[in-house]
């Protein structure tokens, strides 16, 4: 059902070693939308994802996903983390990694079968890496590695996707391809959250936006929310960045 409430966050606060990262966040997210999560460095964008996914301890606040505790609905969530501390020499091929997306759908003694393989192949094809299926992951370029993780998320056939800076190191053609895939997912009533840095493409990519700088600055339809005033509030003294985007003349 379009507009179905998928994630609700109320009063979320997070601190790392007594340093406040997120403060008193309230959000209600609905299915069928792509949310751009935007804010300066250190605004707590990745932390917001990790809190919802319960990868870190939160200081206070309630988070519900599909009206339940996140641990009950993990199967329906896919996460594409920043391309961080992965051991690129690991003996794993592209296909192996993408197939990991099928793991949550399998019971402990169930093997991966042909159907799983087909779904993985389709995901790789959609994102244009099917010719790399048998490559060891360290042999890929940065953009290709990023695409492998996105393909895994697709292969997971989740209902909510968390993508943390998925376009870093990806060329423009691929970026457009990926955003098209994300838009298709949204039209299939999925919920997508994307941490994004390039302010100039926000209104083109996302129909909803979440502006964050430790506090929630604003969220809602991109048209009405992604305004000069709100951006200025979120970025504060870092306005120089904004001039580059052409949003401030």
């Amino acid at each position, binding site marked *: 059902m379009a507009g179905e409430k998928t994630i609700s966050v109320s009063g979320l606060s997070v601190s790392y070693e007594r340093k406040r990262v997120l403060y008193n966040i309230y959000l209600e997210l609905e299915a069928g939308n792509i949310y751009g999560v935007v804010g300066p460095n250190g605004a707590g964008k990745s932390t917001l994802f990790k809190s919802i996914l319960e990868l870190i301890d939160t200081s206070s606040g309630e988070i519900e996903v599909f009206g339940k505790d996140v*641990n009950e609905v*993990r199967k329906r969530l896919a996460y594409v*983390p920043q391309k961080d501390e992965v051991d690129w020499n690991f*003996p*794993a091929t592209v296909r192996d990694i993408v197939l990991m997306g099928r*793991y949550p759908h399998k019971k402990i003694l169930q093997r991966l079968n042909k159907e799983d393989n087909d779904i993985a192949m389709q995901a790789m094809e959609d994102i244009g890496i099917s010719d790399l299926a048998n490559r060891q992951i360290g042999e890929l370029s940065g953009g290709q590695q990023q695409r492998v993780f996105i393909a895994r998320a697709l292969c997971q056939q989740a209902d909510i996707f968390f993508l943390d800076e998925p376009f870093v190191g990806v060329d423009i053609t691929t970026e457009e391809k990926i955003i098209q895939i994300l838009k298709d997912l949204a039209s299939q009533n999925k919920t997508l959250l994307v941490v994004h840095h390039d302010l100039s493409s926000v209104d083109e990519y996302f129909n909803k936006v979440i502006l964050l700088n430790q506090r929630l600055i604003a969220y809602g339809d991109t048209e009405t929310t992604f305004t000069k005033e709100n951006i200025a509030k979120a970025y504060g003294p870092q306005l120089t960045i904004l001039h580059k985007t052409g949003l401030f003349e």
Partner: protein
Amino acid sequence: MQELFLTLTQDEWAIRALIASSLVGIMCGTIGSFIVLRNMSLIGDALAHAILPGIFIAFILVGYSTIGFFLGSVMAGLLTAVIITWIQHNVKTKNDAAIGIVFTAMFSIGVIGISKVSTGDGVHLDLKDFLFGTVLGISNEDIYLTLAITIYSIISIIIFYRYLFITTFQPTIAQTMGISVKMIHYFLMLLLSFAVVSSLRAVGVILVVAMLITPASTALLLSDKLKNVIILSGIIGLLSAVLGLILAISLGGGIAPGPTMCVTATLLYFIAVVFSPKKGLLTKFILRRKQKSKIEQEDIIKHLIKNRKEKINIASVSSALGLSVNVVKKHVKKLATDGVVNQNGNQLMLSIKGNESGDSLVRAHRLWETYLVDEVGLEEGQIHTEAEKYEHILTEEDLDEVDKHLGFPTKDPHGSPIPQKQIKPANPLLKLKLKSRARIAKQQITEHIESELWELGLTPNMEFRIFKIGDDHIVLKTSDKKIKVNEELARQINVLI
């Protein structure tokens, strides 16, 4: 030799040792893959050393008993793990230092205890056996226990393969999928302590870690797929253990099997370091040689293209590029057989094909320079050496991408023209060999080419034969006349063969 064979097939102690070692080799090899990939080598070593006091206490309580030793060791191992974890969480000591402090202390207590009891009368408890393994002291119970543990380990690795894989590769993702990273960690620690304990008699506590990490590291050099790595590692572990045991027996003189197994495993490791088909030093060396030759050959082509109007011979190439005459001769010979360079007496000239690859090298160089200035923001002075390096590495596809990204520039930062990539016909006339026959294709790449053909009197489907291939032109012979076509046009004319 014959004697050794008889010993291994007929003496019961030797057969027992052989079976136990094989099992230990397989088990340590398979579990070892995960130990290495999870950076747990030190923990493995620590657990192995730390089981010694467990043996001492078990001996005091129940005497010489396989099950007693097993339980004592597992308890000691778990106690060690608990103490290490406690220190890591509650005391400000570095993690690896905490491991080192605890296991050396446990080991020392074990050494003191066992030395003390073994000095008593009629006690068969030799410290050396526990430290380095023993050939003679393996009992049937030891074999049954090791067999049970090996089967248990292998079955659980098969069952939990996916979980082990994903928690080792990307623990955060495993967590978001609802897989308990902690549980898998403890499970692996349990397997590890089982492996260590059952290796006690065959290898000894000091060198168990070698059986865990050396075969696995060897396997990691040989394969890029986790499943294959695990299987290979098991096989290499088996080989190391069996060959090591045979070495120990044949050397005689009471040599403990632990050290010989370790040496064998290390030997296999270094063989892989040198000869691994994909990651070996030898392969790298050969690749580097090939790459160097390719770069030198491309430099020769570039030299010829830059000095198109001068007379170039081997000696002048040699001095211009700083390569020895012999090296240049070798490269020129290769380039000539590839049809890139023509030798006219002493003089070297690029063939039509050579000109083409020269152009694409120049294109690579200049495009990359443009990229470095426009996109990376380097100064003009900084870019030449960089481009000199990358022009040899970038593939045609990479370059097309760069070209498109830069918006098809025509001039490089120094103002020199960038050779434009041609739209190539499917079967260019230029590629035909002397005397071969073909027809003019109906489909040409542009209308301009079609009208050029018309003017030359070449119509679609007209048959011809290559009559002569010159330095900058080709002569065709049709049924009634000879037609000279220049190189540039011949490159663009599409033909049917």
